[in-house]
């Protein structure tokens, strides 16, 4: 009716509610997804002013280029993503992710979760297993057709189709085909989803790759319902000087050569470790989350600040 949708989602203009309800219902079918091909990426980049520059690791590039270059990095690393995570973090990333998922529980039945930048599905699969375990433990019966709306649902979204493909293969390999999972290829700064439609928004190791973090935070605020929770797991800054030296040496001296040896790609891993350094500190990121409108924002450091969980509520 008043159809103008603003691209920069922080304004809550009137919109055609019916159209979006229909679209978001369709998302619960697991095979339905919208592809972002190269031309869409160009459309996204056109939304930036020509002179605006952003960080790409330690380089500075025009904002319009960043989306494409990040896309290329993840296209290159997608097939080796999981094995490289294991090699680089010596398996510790599994502990971080398990702890992160534990922080979300208990989840009431019927929770709608969106896992943004969730490509290969690590977080979503853990959530799925925990929900099933929780339901069994609490004897919640969700198989009744009338009660199907009481079933939780997880939407996995990622800007990169290659990562989503890897995720779907993993789901099949792990026998995790479920009605609860759906997949969407979309940009975290411009999610094609209705306002106030999710109860839990999670993003793990994805927000630092977004061109403008504040836009992603605004989108998160928009699509969460009042009372909804924002949870972010991300690499952050180590304060302790000695540990910081060890961490820096390991990141810059060992990870890119390991990337070359295991995956044949030095530059992508160089970008990844540089982008970690460029990301705002824990307190600054907390401020940014508060600027997007979230309240009761807290953060928790894991492994001395190598990784941090930020949490906020739309109150």
């Amino acid at each position, binding site marked *: 009716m008043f159809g103008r949708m603003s691209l920069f989602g922080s304004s809550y203009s009137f919109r055609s509610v019916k159209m979006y309800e229909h679209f978001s219902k369709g998302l619960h079918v697991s095979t339905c997804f919208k592809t972002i091909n190269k031309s869409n990426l160009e459309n996204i980049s056109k939304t930036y002013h020509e002179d605006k520059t952003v960080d790409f690791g330690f380089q500075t590039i025009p904002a319009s280029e960043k989306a494409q270059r990040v896309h290329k990095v993840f296209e290159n690393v997608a097939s080796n993503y999981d094995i490289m995570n294991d090699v680089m973090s010596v398996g510790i990333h599994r502990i971080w992710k398990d702890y992160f998922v534990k922080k979300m529980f208990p989840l009431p039945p019927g929770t709608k979760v969106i896992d943004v930048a969730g490509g290969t599905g690590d977080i979503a699969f853990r959530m799925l297993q925990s929900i099933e375990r929780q339901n069994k433990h609490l004897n919640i019966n969700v198989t009744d057709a009338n009660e199907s709306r009481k079933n939780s649902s997880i939407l996995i979204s990622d800007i990169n189709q290659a990562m989503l493909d890897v995720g779907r293969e993993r789901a099949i390999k792990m026998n995790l085909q479920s009605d609860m999972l759906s997949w969407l290829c979309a940009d975290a700064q411009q999610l094609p989803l209705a306002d106030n439609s999710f109860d839990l928004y999670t993003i793990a190791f994805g927000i630092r790759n977004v061109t403008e973090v504040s836009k992603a935070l605004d989108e998160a605020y928009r699509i969460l319902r009042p009372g909804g929770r924002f949870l972010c797991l991300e690499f952050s800054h180590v304060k302790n000087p000695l540990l910081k030296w060890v961490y820096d040496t390991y990141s810059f*001296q*060992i990870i890119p*050569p*390991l990337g070359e040896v*295991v995956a044949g790609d030095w530059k992508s891993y160089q970008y990844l470790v540089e982008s970690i350094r460029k990301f705002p500190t824990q307190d600054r990121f907390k401020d940014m989350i508060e600027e997007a409108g979230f309240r009761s924002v807290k953060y928790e450091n894991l492994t001395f600040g190598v990784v941090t969980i930020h949490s906020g509520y739309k109150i």
Partner: protein
Amino acid sequence: MLAKNLITCHNRVSVALIQRLYTTTTQTPYILSWIKEEITKKSEPLYDGHIPINLLQRAVLSVGSSIVSLTDPARGDMIAVNGESSGHSALVRMQRKMLESEEGQQILMERPKINSSTVDIEKLKSYPDGTLGREYTKFLEVNNVSPDTRLPVRFVDDVDLAYVMQRYRETHDLVHTLLGCPTNMLGEVAVKWVEALQTGLPMCIGGAVFGPIRLKPKNRSTYLSKYLPWAIRVGSTSSFLMNVFYERRWEQDITELRDELKIETPPGFL
């Protein structure tokens, strides 16, 4: 200070020890920071595609690439990376040997490259049988390889040595042709022996020593009795193959070229 006439033999030793201890303890921070700098320093790229690396990264690359090239034969890029990361002193030696020969000097000055745009493969196919050009194109066809599949050099921290490495990589197929070795395991190992003896690159030595592990049992006896002795003889007695300006010798008869380079006639490969 101690008066000289009070310094006995024992005092002299203890004075020397105390002096050494003093030097070491005060200089330790500088020594440590020198080590840290050596290990972690970064410099600017010197040529297209150059990724400057320091000692620690070089160590990780050499060790990692040797392990992966032994365990995963599909990773040809790991063999290339191994050569680049561990080959510095060998490259210096190769460059010196090239500079000692006139033809080698010309190669280093003109810096020719071998790929499908610089070498006219169709024209070489039209040359008479027995010429270097024709045998080379026959080799490319029979073994289904192309001169374009060579990776660019990335980890050599000197422009001239990077060219020597690039030239080594690009002439590898021509060495195969000269030695009459196909691209199966036996042929590759034989070529690696020759290259190891001539160039001294650790990657070649590793390939020559560990490559035969992958030989099928039926090939092992012929390898040990026929091909290995031949390869060692050729590697030690023939002239330095990097000094051959192949681009000027396409029309030369290959047997004549082999005589000129003192390469023994290759045994038949199955």
